[in-house]
């Protein structure tokens, strides 16, 4: 299973590096979202800085949706889904591989967005340990759930519009948890943020288990 996961993750990341869709479309989109937030709230610089955690994670979610849609769009083209079913790869391995690939892309995106909020919003970064833990755990939560819902929507013609409708409500607890944890880190009260990290860890663990067992049947239906 882990061999299959590595094979899929390596293939997906190679696809992204060669196609440059993430670099040319997802990253500019994410930065554009940050800029638009800045335009909308600029008259009140203090409010912008205060709202940084929420704006940052909303930008991550919106941009992450593009990465997740892309992850399944490449599998839907020209008979690839059938080839995957025939390949002999373990469905759980495919799930873990696609999750890993999406997570790596999200991490890169989050680093760039972190630089973006520091520059555009003037946010000073404090509580680094909590910030890093939040990024890692929230990324795991988003990618584990996103990959599972991605395969649900993959076989449908309306997948581009359906995936956000399915996924965004599910990811609401992650948005809240990551925002609260960031607020705690940036306000110098990290002890208030760690319970949220724990909550997101449980969320990610639940979706990993659901994905390992549920991805195969869902892939059959897609």
């Amino acid at each position: 299973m882990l061999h299959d996961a590595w094979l899929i993750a390596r293939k997906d990341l190679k696809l992204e590096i060669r196609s440059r869709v993430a670099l040319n479309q997802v990253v500019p989109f994410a930065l554009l979202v940050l800029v638009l937030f800045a335009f909308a709230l600029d008259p009140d610089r203090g409010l912008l800085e205060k709202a940084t955690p929420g704006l940052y994670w909303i930008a991550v979610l919106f941009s992450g949706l593009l990465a997740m849609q892309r992850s399944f769009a490449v599998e839907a083209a020209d008979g690839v889904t059938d080839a995957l079913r025939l390949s002999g790869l373990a469905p759980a391995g495919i799930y873990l591989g696609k999750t890993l690939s999406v997570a790596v892309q999200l991490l890169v995106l989050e680093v760039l967005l972190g630089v973006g909020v520091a520059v555009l919003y003037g946010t000073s970064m404090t509580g680094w340990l909590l910030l890093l833990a939040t990024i890692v755990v929230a990324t795991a939560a988003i990618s584990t759930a996103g990959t599972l819902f991605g395969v649900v929507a993959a076989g449908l013609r309306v997948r581009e519009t359906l995936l956000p409708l399915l996924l965004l409500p599910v990811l609401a607890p992650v948005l809240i948890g990551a925002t609260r944890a960031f607020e705690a880190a940036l306000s110098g009260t990290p002890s208030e943020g760690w319970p949220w990290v724990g909550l997101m860890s449980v969320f990610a663990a639940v979706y990993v288990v659901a994905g390992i067992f549920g991805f195969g049947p869902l892939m059959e239906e897609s």
Partner: protein
Amino acid sequence: MVHLRGAVALLGRFPALAGVDLDVDRRRIVLLRGANGAGKTTLLRALAGLVPISAGEAIVLGVDLRVDHKSVRPRVGLLAHGAGLYDELSVADNVRFWTLAAGAVLADAESAMARLGLDGRLSDVSVGRLSTGQRRRTSLACLIARRPELWLLDEPHAGLDKEGRDVVDELVRDAADAGATIILSSHELDRAIDLADEIVTLGGGVALDDSGAGGDGHVA
């Protein structure tokens, strides 16, 4: 190798296979022929375990497809209408990925590419930039690198030039000599009939007749 009796497969509520009888022994090359919509593609997909058999008997490579239609999949190679390739990846990346996914080794991928004339400069070209014939060759390379026991070829000659078609025929004969079983559908009957040991005609989702071909062009 393949044993179907009254096999029924539904696409939605439509019986794309409406009671097919088919027996194919090891090392045989069987040509499926029939008009568009006769059920050739559905039959190949059903034999690959991609379309469930809802009634009748269906045993492929010793696996009862009505009980378990998934475990046969890694043992078959399906050349379908879709190329089953990633456009952004190179020819070599595609062949290597599908080879490793099937549990084979990289040497199998390299020899498959060489066999299909895909080694050298072409191996680094993105699949999205290939001609239809080159894509078909790449799909074939992915198939032969898997070393399947049952080859299911849906219009294998489509999009290929004469040289490519000759290569396909050679591959099929070599695979049969090596112990594989081949079931192919084709509209290019002149070429396919010479290749086949048996011919099965499909119409309306059932096998209308079958006959020995033996390269003499005889069709029942």
